[in-house]
Structure formats: structure tokens, C-alpha cells
């Protein structure tokens, strides 16, 4: 099987976001970059599937600037067979990112299955996988936390919120977006991290992909940090008094209960 994984490089979850001076993006100085957590699940699923299907390969794709090579190397260290960077700025929108990924998959041949994370934790749109599927003419099953593989089809457990699960069957090829619970992503060993440093990572330019950054339909600008909060109003008294006062605040001041 030709298995593809699309990953996004994002700031580590512990990052304190600082804004660029022009306000149209974040200051990337000192940011620790990681593979977006749901994308690690996508990589793990691809590796497990490959190992059950002799002759399969896992190709990892990531759109972004030079820095994303580091995350692609991490995917190689986890066990992916090859990795390709699609040379786009970090702020390209989901329209152009999905165009780039579709073009890259076409260039590499045919896909039997494409795994993505349910969303990247930077923009959190959760849109690229679905848009990619529509471009490729594949069905797309989103927010999947369990997969049974059949012959030419898969049955997915889909998390539809509120604790409810849908069981959906789809033909392959398909795009599947991974949700927590799908698997436990492996850690790359130190040895494999070192080995991955020597592996080649191809780069495809926008010209080679036949796309243009100018096709972005949206831009994000005027970033703002959350406004500073007023100091917390601490409720004093005995525990019973505190509880009574808090319930009064909820009922009378906020009118929430």
C-alpha cells in the first residue's frame, strides 16, 4: 500500500505566544517546534498499517518553511520511509496547503490511504485533510479513534462529540483524520533520531507543485493577545460562607443558575 501522512509543525503546547511587532503573526524566536499531537497519531497509524501489509511504504508530507525539516526527521525517526517538504510559508491558508498536499501526492504516484491529524493545534481549523480528500476525490472520515481494516475498505469509529460514536465504513482510497484514542504514538529512539539525520528529505517548490501562494483566500492579521484580566475577586469566610457567597454570585451577579 502507498500510505501517506500529512503533518503540521506547531509550537510546543507549553509555548507562551508573543506577537510580531507588525501584529500580523507571532514572534517565532525561541519557539520549540513539535509535530502537532494529533499528527503523531496519524504517523503511528500509518506505521502500524505498513507493518501489517508487506511491501507498503509510508511517505510523510509537511508544508512549511525550512524549519519543518526537523519535524519530518522526527517522523523518519519514528519509522516513516520517506519525507517531503512542500515549500510554503507557515501562514499559507488551508486552501493552498491542501492544494500543495494534493499535488505532492499526485507527483509521488497513487495513494491507498492518507492519514492526517484531526486538527493542528496552531490554527485548529481541522480543514486541510477534508479539503485534500475533496481534491483527490477520496472520501474523508474525520475524528477517528478506531479503525478496522478490511479488503479495499475500512470501518472507522468516529468521535462525534458528547460521548457519541459513529461507526462508518468507507471504500479505499480515503483520507482519515486521527483523534486521541486511535493509538499510542511511539517514541523515536535516540539511535533512530541519529540515523534520521542522515536521511535525505526532498523539497518541492511551489513551481514544482504547480501552485501559488497568491491563491490563498484568507489571511490572518491584527493578532491580539487576550486582554489582561482584572485581579481575581477572592471570596473570604468559612467554607460554608464561601460556598453560599459563590452561589449567590453565580445566581445574582452572573445570572447563570
Amino acid at each position, binding site marked *: 500500500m502507498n500510505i501517506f501522512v500529512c503533518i503540521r509543525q506547531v509550537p510546543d503546547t507549553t509555548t507562551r505566544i508573543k506577537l510580531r511587532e507588525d501584529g500580523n503573526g507571532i514572534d517565532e524566536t525561541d519557539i520549540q517546534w513539535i509535530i502537532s499531537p494529533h499528527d503523531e497519531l496519524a504517523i503511528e497509524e500509518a506505521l502500524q498499517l505498513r507493518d501489517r501489509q508487506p511491501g507498503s511504504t509510508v511517505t510523510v508530507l509537511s508544508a512549511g518553511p525550512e524549519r519543518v525539516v526537523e519535524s519530518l526527521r522526527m517522523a523518519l525517526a519514528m519509522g516513516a520511509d520517506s519525507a517531503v517538504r512542500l515549500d510554503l510559508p507557515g501562514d499559507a491558508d488551508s486552501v493552498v496547503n491542501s492544494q500543495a498536499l494534493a499535488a505532492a501526492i499526485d507527483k509521488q504516484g497513487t495513494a491507498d490511504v492518507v492519514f492526517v491529524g484531526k486538527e493542528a493545534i496552531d490554527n485548529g481549523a481541522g480543514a486541510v485533510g477534508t479539503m485534500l480528500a475533496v481534491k483527490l476525490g477520496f472520501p474523508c472520515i474525520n475524528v477517528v479513534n478506531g479503525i478496522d481494516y478490511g479488503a479495499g475498505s475500512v470501518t472507522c469509529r468516529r468521535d462525534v462529540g458528547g460521548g*457519541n460514536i459513529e461507526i462508518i465504513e468507507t*471504500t479505499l482510497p480515503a483520507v482519515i483524520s486521527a483523534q486521541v484514542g486511535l493509538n499510542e504514538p511511539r517514541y523515536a529512539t535516540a539511535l533512530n533520531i541519529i540515523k534520521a539525520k542522515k536521511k535525505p528529505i526532498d523539497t518541492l517548490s511551489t513551481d514544482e507543485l504547480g501552485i501559488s501562494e497568491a491563491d490563498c483566500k484568507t489571511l490572518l492579521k491584527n493578532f491580539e493577545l487576550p486582554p489582561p484580566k482584572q485581579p481575581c475577586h477572592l471570596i473570604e469566610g468559612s467554607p460554608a460562607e464561601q460556598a453560599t457567597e459563590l452561589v449567590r454570585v453565580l445566581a445574582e451577579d452572573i445570572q447563570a443558575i
Partner: protein
Amino acid sequence: MKILIIAEHKNGVLAEATRELFGLPLGQAEIHAVVAGEGIAPLAEPLGQLGAAKVRLVDSPALAGGTGESLGQALGQVIPQLAPDVVLTAHTPQGRDLAPRLAEGLDAALATDCIQATFNDGQVTLRRPVYAGKATAEVEFTDDSLKVITIRPRTAKAPEPDTALSAEVTSVSVQLSEQKTVLKEIIAGGGERPDVTEAAIIVTGGRSLGSAENFSIIENFADTIGAAVGSSRAAVDAGYRPYRDQVGQTGKVVSPQVYIACGVSGAIQHLAGMRTSKHIVAINTDPDAPIFQLADHGIVGDLFEVVPLLAEAVKNRTGG
């Protein structure tokens, strides 16, 4: 400007998140709504009373099972006939799945999870969270393409229905091709409590609860006020709660009216997931816990003591 609202529904009732869309500052826009499903004709009346001038019904047994594929295909056929400038839907699990399908299929621009949206004189102004709420950004559209926009639940308050209003209702039919995806089964596991992404009030517990059983303290209080139960990542990792309750950058990002954090210290990735809550309450033994920097109201105290008293105080107040 013509805005088309995609109405979401369940068991014959309009989703609250859909009703809220009519409460956004929609300016002088012409509001249309579309409902897809089986037996959905009765939904036209409430949509009219909320302010839809025209309602289009896409009624088909093939849409009863509502996969993203069938819904996307059906609406993808209907929307061009209506030629809206904006397609608006709630950022619910269904809306999140549907919006990119429509945007890609209709060559539209896509803006998801907006927490501010103003429509005025043909101008659309949007703000959305980035980095799970660690910052927000304005969405600028680079051309005049159709705009597909999803709005985070609880961004606006649903207007009261105006019984004097009614919509012009039309049925439209669609031709669905053979489907690649088939919905086999829906397993309901949610129980009676609301989901954290749609609840008005969330009571969240952290790892300091110490066990899955001790979360009954949180549940009891949540149930007295009709709240959802949330969890920090640490409590999920410790196995006290299922992942679906996790609030934070790698869990659910929420914006309830009131967020009550009990024994949650406030790791940065947790704060990112709940900081857009309208009112934040923190209960923690440690007065220096980061959660207090974000809280509007706080109690420095032991949740094991305070939270049961809260449940009691609510019962006393309501005479229960």
C-alpha cells in the same frame, strides 16, 4: 448581502448552536436558511420565527443517516442555486466536518471557529482564536469568493422567536451519487450531561481529585446546576476521566458562560482551552496557582470541602 444559515438539528429539534447564529450582528443582510435531512419540514417554522426570510428544505430519506459525504454533496448542489455571499454554520462536530467539504467543493474561502463575527453593508469582520486561544486574529478575505464561516457555539445568544414572523418555504431536491461512506451505527454514550463544547456551565476537576470515584463530587455539583463535567489533561492521563471531557489545547477548546475549575492548577495548555469563557471561577488550595490569574472569582480552599457545600448551597437557594 445574502447569508445562508445551514441549520443543524437532532431528533426534530433545531440545535441551540444554530439558533444562536441568528443572534449575531447580521446587519441588514438577507437571511436564508437551509435544512437537510428526513422529515425536516416542521423546522421551517422555528427558523422563520428566528428571522430567516426564506427556508429551503432538502428532505430525503438518503440524508437520514447524515454522513458528511451525503450532507456535503446535497448542500453542495443546493448552495449555488441560492447564490449566497456567506454560508454560515455552527462550529459543532457536524459543522467542522461539513464546512471544509463545502468550501473546497464550491471554491470558497473558509474561516472556522470564529468567536466574533459582524456583518455590515456587505462587510464581514471576523476574529478567530489561534494557538487554541493563546491569541486571536482577524480573518481577511483576499477576494470576492463565497465565504464559508463557522461560528463557535455560545458566541452569540439566540434571539427569542418572534411568532409574528414566518419564512417563505420551498422544497428542493438533490441527486445523490453512489456513496463511498456508509453510516453503520451510532453508539450513544453521552449520558444526560451536556457536552463540554456546548454547555453553558462547565465544572472541571483536576488531578487533585485523586481518583475516578472522587469525581462524583464534581458530578454531583455539576448536576445541581445542569453543567457539563470537564477534566484537566492530567486527570485524563491519570485515567480518572475519558478523553472526551478534556479541556485544553490538545482536548476541547470551550467558551461557556461560566467555567468553574476545581483543583485545577492551570497549566498553560489548559488555560488556552478555556480562557474565552465569559466568567471563570477557581477553587484551589494553592493561592499562587496560575488559574487564579485568569479567574474572575476565586475560593482559596479545599475542593473536597467546598464543592459539596456548593451543591448544598444551590439546593438551599432553589428550595430543593
